[in-house]
């Protein structure tokens, strides 16, 4: 039987989080945790002379922002079993110290595939990070596998 869902949910934003300020100190602590020593992330003077004219976060910092409280209840489910099938992150613009970052999320795609273990339904939720100017910083595609 073909997969049934309301196509109107595709591309419809279901949640936008409150802005979170990116503090230079938080970037610094993130770098310490990772062992990242590039001064454009941690040293204000060096960063001013760098390509971005100020402190920016390492690209992977994009995944530290939390989705909103209603994120998971808006993830369509097909069947009772499944798992987190990973994330794809597209880094668009640097995240700068002082940015006010929001995440908006929508269902990007729902598709089926078959494999050794049977039929699977994949739900892809795209969370887009933007700063206070509306510039897109990153896209995070969360992929969830459901076993129908």
């Amino acid at each position, binding site marked *: 039987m*073909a997969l049934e869902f309301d196509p109107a949910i595709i591309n419809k934003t279901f949640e936008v989080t409150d802005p979170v300020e990116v503090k230079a100190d938080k970037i610094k602590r993130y770098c310490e945790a990772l062992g990242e020593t590039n001064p454009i992330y941690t040293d204000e003077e060096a960063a001013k002379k760098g390509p971005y004219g100020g402190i920016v976060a390492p690209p992977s910092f994009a995944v530290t922002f939390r989705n909103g409280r209603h994120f998971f209840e808006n993830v369509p489910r097909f069947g009772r079993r499944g798992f987190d099938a990973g994330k794809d992150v597209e880094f668009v613009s640097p995240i700068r110290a002082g940015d006010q970052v929001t995440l908006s999320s929508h269902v990007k795609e729902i*598709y*089926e*595939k*078959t*494999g*050794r*273990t*049977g*039929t699977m339904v*994949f739900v892809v939720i795209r969370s887009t990070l933007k700063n206070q100017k509306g510039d897109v910083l990153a896209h995070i595609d969360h992929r969830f596998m459901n076993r129908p």
Partner: protein
Amino acid sequence: MSTILDLHTHSEASEDSRAPVEAYLNWIKLKAGERRLDGIVLTEHRQFNRDGDYRALEDKFGTMVLRASEVETNYGHMLVFGVNEDMTRRFDFADIRLDAQTLIDEVARMGGIVVPCHPGRPNIGLYQHYQSKPALNNVVAVEALNGGSRKGEDERSAELIAKHGFAATGGSDSHLVSLIGLCATKFEADIKTIEDLVRELKTGNFEPVDFRPKRKPVPQAVAMESR
């Protein structure tokens, strides 16, 4: 002159692969001493990917890039070669419940050929479906060697081929750069286009080639007392 092609590959156009075509071609160049490959066929999952112009890469690396599709049917996964607009209008390639017999017959009528892939694989291979359903008509060839096969899968494919007299192909089914060309198909003819490939696949005049490194036997454990 013969032609060796990897007939089953996935690039980043497939949702479960992160391999850029350029990286594949570069790897083929690096491994030319171990795996002679004249070209690859991109068989993206559940789609026919027309995007991308690979002519400059073909010239740069001297390796041919052709396009086909891997679709999903009620008899498992199948490679469709010679995809044209008639086929993409007739079938929804994203549908995982395509009727295999209709696909085989219609694709042949429209000038292409369907080759069931990894037939020994559980659930998505022809072998298992043949245990409970009638055999399909007009199957010329199946994929005998698949670079992603697990233990026993290629053996089941060989059993199926011996029983039904299919011609046999090979493909890496690579989703990662370093796996490209591990299995391939050797054609006696010179192949330059997808039309050449379809023509040759219909003749059955080819054989699978296996470039996978041979597994070293697991050393036998020796009891302490016998040392």
